[in-house]
């Protein structure tokens, strides 16, 4: 019997359309990725349930979701001044249980393109026809908790070394609603 988490299944639910009012305020639709996570071990585990980063490759249809510390994905040439990482939302998965984590994902992906000025240059590509989903899920046998007053470096170091990350590529098995 394994002592960790297994990413058992993933499904994509279509977004709830935004209202006219929301659209006027630039609120964008969110589709929902339901990730079934199985704890086959003998102890409860604490899994991150809030997305920290995502990416979509429209050429392959692969959606990548980070329910894990994403600092490794920041490209060279970007030096953060304000990036105090918050305590991630977490969910407890009891021994032997399977929990479904609902991850709202925008329906568009912004992709940087060569710049022509000081403003950001990007294109928005629809996140659709998802063929597979690469999931990075961080978890530990104890919850990640805030320590009031800890510095940015201390927080970042603790987050990066907290527990472990399970990664899997799954094919969405169903589309509900």
């Amino acid at each position, binding site marked *: 019997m394994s002592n960790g988490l297994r990413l058992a299944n993933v499904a994509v639910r279509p977004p709830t359309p935004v209202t006219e009012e929301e659209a006027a305020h630039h609120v964008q639709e*969110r589709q929902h990725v339901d990730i079934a996570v199985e704890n086959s071990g003998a102890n409860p585990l604490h899994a991150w349930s809030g997305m920290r980063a995502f990416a979509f490759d429209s050429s392959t249809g692969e959606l990548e979701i980070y329910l894990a510390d994403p600092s490794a994905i920041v490209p060279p040439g970007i*030096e953060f001044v304000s990036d105090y990482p918050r305590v991630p939302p977490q969910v407890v998965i009891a021994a032997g249980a399977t929990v479904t984590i609902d991850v709202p994902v925008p329906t568009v*992906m912004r992709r940087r393109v060569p710049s022509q000025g000081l*403003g950001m240059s990007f294109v928005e590509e629809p996140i659709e026809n998802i063929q597979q989903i690469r999931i990075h899920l961080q978890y530990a046998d104890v919850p990640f908790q805030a320590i009031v007053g800890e510095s940015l470096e201390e927080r970042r170091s603790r987050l990066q070394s907290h527990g472990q990350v399970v990664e899997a590529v799954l094919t969405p098995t169903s589309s509900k609603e």
Partner: protein
Amino acid sequence: MTLFIDQSGDSSAVFGDLYSISRQDGGLGDSNVAGDPTVIQVTYIETAGQPATADRLNTLVNTDFGTPIVLTALPGGIDPYSGLDVTGNGFTYIDSTSGADVIRIVYDDSQCVGSGIFMFDVDGNHISTPNPVILYHELSHAFRAATGTTQPNDEIPAETDENVMRSELGLCLRDVNNHDGGCGSGDSCGGTTNNGCFIVSAATGSRESAVVLRLKLQRDRIFRATDLGSRLMDAIYRDYYRFSPRIAAEMQKDPVIRDVVLSIAVRPLVAWYTLANVLALTPADDAAAVEAVAGVWAAVPSGIEAQEVAAALRSIQASEPLPADASLIFVYLAERIQQAPRMPFASWAILEPLVRVWTTYASGSDVLEAVQAWLVAAPLETLEPPAGQELEDELAFLASGPFAPLNARQQVGRRLLAAWPETQIALVRHGFVVVGGDQ
């Protein structure tokens, strides 16, 4: 000159947030940048006596740090430069990917897709964090990045600065040793960034003018009387905030615009709301209604062709081209409030009364009927329904006041029943829906 607004994001939202940071200072403005249509440059001539947040903004705008600061508001989602999800957050970073350094502030102006953004006070309570506060926090980071004074733990000075703004706005103060937060609601401690009558304040020259105070009194009597009314008011302000700061800032600089907006929009609107209050709160007081009607007609300026005003306002409301002979002021307004017709709350609260008051004046028709019809059209059904005793109290208030006439109540009832089917029994109990009737 250092501060720029990124046109690839929501530039109106950024300008509105800067206007809040300046504490509604008409010295704030913007200008195009020659050769770079991707940004607009922020300009600021600070009015004497503005508070500390305005002083910081003045420094950021009018000091040449050698490194531009670019502000981008996004509705959550991926920051395309860092690759991180900005939903519910704000980032400041130095971007050297194109050669020269650029300090970028990227922040989520959707309030975490509408769910709110909270931080913590010293007792560990969740406290709300409006968008101008998020931007001011990030500007604090940017200031130190631009001046080479970034601290090893730069969150503490940023949160100390943030508390300066929170204090100015009457918001709960943040624990400067707790740098966490998340998506969800929080206590505002009674403070707010979105109750400013920006345009009325600019038109009358003061946030404390008699007209502003009268308008706030009318607002509080009718909208703040119940939770549903408060939520309706909040929704109206969310809409209003999208377009009003820029107009208000321009009015403060241009007395012609200020005088015209005051006469064709502000005074008639205030009189309209006064009459609406009478009809909604004291429907049996005929003398008060007569006085309020007289107030509406007195507020409509003489010497202006009412038909022309009504036609132009109808075109703006319908997002249609203006009549060929429309005055320049309507060309200006149409450009500045082009978002408003698509916003149901702003459209109902601002455009609809203006169209009705000028149309009624031009045609000589009954303004009492016009106000009653406007009250009936209040987009209550677009809000989440109250529940339990709160629902009973709300419906009782509405049935005895704004919708006391049975035909008005039943018109509203049809819409509420369609949107809130779970409230049918309460709607019947309060006369909004007739059992067996043609609903």
